[in-house]
Structures are given as C-alpha cells and as structure tokens.
C-alpha cells in the first residue's frame, strides 16, 4: 500500500507552495467580436447543431426578457435569468447526447430550450397551474422533464452534484454509454457536497461532467469573498481529475470543451471539471437589486462580451444564419411566449388532491384523512379558498378518471 502516488524525490529543505504557479489558461475560440482567434482549430460544430444551439440561446434570451417583464408587472411571483450565461449552458448541452442526464442549479433554462422543452411547459411551471407536472408545488423556474433527461430543479444548492455522481455511476453500470452533466455556480461549489461529489467521482471513475458557471457572484458575494484561489478549476487537481477552464461566453469553446469532456467521461470513465468563466449580467433574481454591490461600469464591460452576438457573428460569417431570419424568429418567439403566457395565466390551479399525492408512492391513510378533513373544510368556507374551492367537484370527476387504469399509461423510465 502506497500512501502517495507521487514520484517526486524527497527534499531536505521545507518547501511550501500555494499553487500560485499553476496558471490555468482560458480556452477560447471566438474573439469578442465573433471572429475566430488565429490558431483556433477547426470547430467540430456542424451546421444543424450550430443553428439549434443559437436558436436555443435566442429563445432563452427572449424568454428571460419577457418573463422578467411579467414579473415586474406583477403577473409572476419570481423569476431568474440566464442572461449572459447562455453560451455556457447551451453550448455544453449541445455537446451532449440528448439522452445524457442534466442536473442543473436553476439558471439553466437554456439547456431545456435546447432540448425542446415547450413554451407551454415553461409557462405551466412558471404559473404553477394544472399543466405543471409538479402541480405548482415549487417556485417558478424549478423545471423538470423526465422525457428530456433534465432533473427537476431543487433549491438547496449543490445537492445535485453528488447526485450526479451517483446517477452517472448507475449509467456506467447500465453500460449504455451515457453520462451526466452537473451544472452549478461557483458559489455552490463552496458547499461540502461539491467536495464529496468530485472526490467520489474520481475514486469510482464515474462518467460525470461537472460544469461550474463561474459568473462572478453568488447573489451579492463576489468571487473574491467566495474563495482565495484562482477560480474553481484548480480544485480538480486535488482529486486528480481532468479539468479545463473555458471562456463561458464563447459557445464554440464551451461546445468543444464539453465534447471532449464527454469523450473522457464516457469512453475513459474519467470525470471532468469544466469551469466556464462568465458573468451574471442580470440581477441574481427578480428579488435582487445588484446596484448595492456592483457597478454599472463593470456590468457594461461584460455586456460587451454578450455570448449571443459573438456566436451570431460566427454563424453569419459562415452563412449559416441570416439577420432577417433572426428578426423574424425573435418576433415569433416573443409572440409565442406572450400568447402562451396568457393562456397559462388563465389555466386553473392544480387539483386540491395534489397537495397530498407524490409524498409517498401511495397516499398513506393518515394523510388521506388529513386531506378529507381539508376538503370538508374548504367546502365549508369556499370563499376563503378561491384557488381550490371552485374546482372541488371538477377534481372529483378527474379522480374518477384517474381510477381508470388505462389513464395510467406509464412513460418508460429514462
């Protein structure tokens, strides 16, 4: 049993080091203006994927603008934007197989957009109406999709990181060549779960990719108060894990890095840590106002590095995209979002019974009793419960329907 794998010769003078000499470069292909750096290799991004990628970034931007406005108008209780980080999120997603698992934090709607989450699905979750598969139980932006291999978002930070390690271990045993992508912020990377996840992944050689969006802030806390080190990438060395730092505003670079990371993960069972250097252009959430902790000037400097314009220019130069096409697309997306939102706002709330289903696979008797009491109570005071009282009888009709076994038509497990 060796207690170290180091082959370094012993030294006889105390040699302290703090890793200052480890300089992790940023991998980037597109210049801020969207042209390729000299020396940038051929991109492996094909036309269709490139267009799909850019479309998803555009969609995300349109969605965020529209929903933030809706929140400001008081139509929505809460919202979080991906703005500025679309390249990191969508670029990575595009490099995966569509059946690879994604376990994200909350700011990664771009990944869903790329995989074809419908506007209706976005809206139903945001408005917590009857169409939301999670029955309006979670706050807005806590999307999930089993079909699209996107784990339902959970607010406690970093919990999905060791879960990703476990999920990927299961994928490895299943032997279908899939991997898991965990996405999280540089703030979340301070949690104990991060350490657990990376260490376990490297010990058990798990096909998982850890993508850290280093966007400069965790709410108001700048990275300088989050860690003293040079970003998050260098932590990988402590686990002897492959890592790379990439320009998170360069979709092309993120795509290439993730593609190679996926190869390492799936073909060599080498977990990988990717640190995407980017910036949270918007407020942390609709509840936040960044003017108290950072300058407009700083924001402006980053606005110039907008990941959308950068990729757009590259696409235009290749002739894979047209300005006119974009205008039309944006127009139609805006309409689609607005129209769908209007419908979603009007959809009825989830059935009262959804308060007690899904706690366990079956509703236990004592909980069923609590529910029955609640129903009786709501019936006695319908005026106090406008969200559920009007639908009580409709719900019972639904229940009858659900007791029909043919209604249970199960979707296959991912």
């Amino acid at each position: 049993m060796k207690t170290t794998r180091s082959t370094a010769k012993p030294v006889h003078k105390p040699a302290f080091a703090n890793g200052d000499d480890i300089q992790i470069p940023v991998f980037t292909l597109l210049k801020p203006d969207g042209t390729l750096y000299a020396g940038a290799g051929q991109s492996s991004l094909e036309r269709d994927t490139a267009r799909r990628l850019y479309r998803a970034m555009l969609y995300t931007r349109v969605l965020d603008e529209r929903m933030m406005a809706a929140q400001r108008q008081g139509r929505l209780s809460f919202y979080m934007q991906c703005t500025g980080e679309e390249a990191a999120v969508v670029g990575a997603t595009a490099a995966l197989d569509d059946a690879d698992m994604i376990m994200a934090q909350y700011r990664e709607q771009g990944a869903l957009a790329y995989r074809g989450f419908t506007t209706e699905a976005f809206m139903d979750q945001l408005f917590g109406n009857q169409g939301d598969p999670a029955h309006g139980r979670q706050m807005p932006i806590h999307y999930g999709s089993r079909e699209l291999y996107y784990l339902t978002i959970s607010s406690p930070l970093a919990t999905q990181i060791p879960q990703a390690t476990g999920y990927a271990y299961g994928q490895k045993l299943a032997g279908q060549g899939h991997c898991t992508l965990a996405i999280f912020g540089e703030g979340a990377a301070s949690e104990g779960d991060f350490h657990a996840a990376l260490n376990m992944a490297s010990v058990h050689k798990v096909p998982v990719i850890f993508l850290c969006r280093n966007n400069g802030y965790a709410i108001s806390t700048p990275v300088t108060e989050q860690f003293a080190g040079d970003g998050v990438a260098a932590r990988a060395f402590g686990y002897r894990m492959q890592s790379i730092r990439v320009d998170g505003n360069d979709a092309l670079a993120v795509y290439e890095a993730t593609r190679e990371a996926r190869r390492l993960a799936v073909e060599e069972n080498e977990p990988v840590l990717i640190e995407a250097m980017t910036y949270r252009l918007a407020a942390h959430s609709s509840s936040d106002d960044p003017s108290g902790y950072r300058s407009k000037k700083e924001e402006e400097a980053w606005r110039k590095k907008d990941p959308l314009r950068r990729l757009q220019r590259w696409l235009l130069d290749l002739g894979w995209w047209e300005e006119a096409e974009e205008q039309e697309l944006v127009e139609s997306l805006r309409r689609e979002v607005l129209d769908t939102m209007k419908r979603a706002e009007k959809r009825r709330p989830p059935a009262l019974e959804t308060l007690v289903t899904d706690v366990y696979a079956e509703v236990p008797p004592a909980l069923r009793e609590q529910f029955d009491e609640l129903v009786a109570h709501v019936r006695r005071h319908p005026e106090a419960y406008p969200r559920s009282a009007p639908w009580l009888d409709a719900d019972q009709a639904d229940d009858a329907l659900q007791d029909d076994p043919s209604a249970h038509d199960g979707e296959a497990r991912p």
Partner: protein
Amino acid sequence: MSRMNLLQAINNALDTAMAADPRVLCFGEDVGVFGGVFRATSHLQEKYGRERCFNTPLVEQGIVGFANGLAAQGSVPVAEIQFADYIFPAFDQIVNESAKFRYRSGSLFDVGGLTIRAPYGGGIAGGHYHSQSPEAYFAHTPGLTVVVPRNPHQAKGLLLASIRSPDPVIFFEPKRLYRAAVGEVPDEDYQLPLRQAEVIKAGEDITLLAWGAQLEVVEQAAEMAEEAGISCEIIDLRTIVPWDVETVASSVLKTGRLVVSHEAPLTGGFAAEIAATIQSRCFLYLESPIARVTGLDTPFPLTLEKEYMPGPLKVFEAIQQTMDF
C-alpha cells in the same frame, strides 16, 4: 421608542449587541456589504468593519462550524443562515457539536456565545424551500435553545437575550412578519426572558398556544371565537425548548381545553410534545382532547399554500370542535 418593523428590530438588536460588546460578530451568506438578502444586517459592516461583519463562502456547515469554533474561543458569533430551509447542511454541526459541546467536555469548553439566526416559516409564496418551519428538529436536541419572536418588540428583546445567553440559541425569525409586523420598540438595550412563555390574552374557556407568525393567526381565530361567545386564553410559547411547561399547564388547568397551532407538518411537530406533556400533567382537568392545527404531512407547497397553512378559519374550527366535544 421607535416604530419599527420586525426586520428593523432585528437589525437594531444586532447593532445594539455589537455596540455593547466588541466580541459580537455577525456573518453569513451576503450579510456583509449587502446587509443580507432581507437586509437584517444592513449597515453593520459599515459601522463595525469587515472583521466583525462579513460575508462567508456559501457553505452552511462551514458557517456553523466556524461559529462553533469562535464561540469556543470566547467570541460571540451571530451566524445567519439565509433561510431556515438551508440549515440542514449544518445539522451535524448543530446537533452533534453545538448542542453537546458543554456536556461532553464537562464545561471545560462551551459554545454558549453562539446564536444562529434564520428567517423561517411560510406565507410568502416560497414553496418547498423558502417556507419550512424546522423548529421541531432542533427541539429534540438537548443542549439547544430555540426561540421564535412574534413581533418587533419581542424580536429585539429576545434576540439580545439569545446573544447573551450562556447556551447556544437558534433564533428563527418569521419572515412573513419581517415587513408586515410593525410596532413600538424601545431604543435602549433590553432583554426579554428566554424559556418563559407569555400569556398575551387572558381567557376562561380554552387555551390557544402558538409561536411566531402563528400568533397573529391564532389571534384572529380567537376574535371569531369571542364573537361566538368563547373566551380564549392566548399564550405565546416564545422559547420552544427548553419550554415553559408551567405557564401552559396552569392555563390548561384553568380552561380545561388546549389548541396548539404551528405551521410545520403535524407528525412529530412540536405540538406533539406539548400535547403529550399536557395530557399527562392535566389529565383530570381536560374536558376535550388537545387539538393540533398544523401544516399537512407533506412538503410545503406553493400554489395551494393557503390550503396547506393552518389559517384562522382552521384554528377557529378546531376551537369550536374542542368546545363542542
């Protein structure tokens, strides 16, 4: 006296504590420049410097571990957990460490200076993870003191007492009241007693017991009951553990009836402990079963939050049923 909301009262208490004792430190996620996501620590960094009020990295187990160490050293840490829902990564540091520090060392070491503050409770459309009321988890842990204030005046006095208590205290702040509860708060430094419940309204027929934001609910229910001719005695438990059995028991010995209400799920909630103790203490005086009006045994929902919560109507109905038993 100044008119303050609950948030201002908390901020004022922290300011008072830091001014009075240089060993008092405030830290947690975003509590520095920003003053906390709810602004409970506003201007403290400005006033007392970055060494005494600062942001921590985003790691609750580290925040409480760090705070335990500081308290052992003789400092007086007031650590903020951004939401009570996020206190669980620190559960080991609290339950296995803070709570047992003094006992396991025979008082060679203690973390009596420790206070952990966290916004808590529902009613703000926070869903699963911005609404929980986890007091019962901590109440099963000998060594801890758990406090919940009901209004600005209480908040300042109880928080100052918590910071100065020789035992570690978890101080849950009903965030629904942060801006909603407004009242007169003394400007000076004062403390309200820990471990003492307060009878906030005397009555004859039934005792209503609650804590934090739930008192407002219980008060509304009591009004409805009074209209129906039922005289309610209302008690604010204030300190969840160690709890004031005497005050509650003497009230129930008088009224013969008890309704306890909290937002947390029913099963294993702290009302269970109260009911178990009181049925034992007051067995021959009870005229009807002790009733619990609580959240459902489910995670905290969003769209149907109102249906989930133990609102005034539910408490009122429980009062009626208890009277009619």
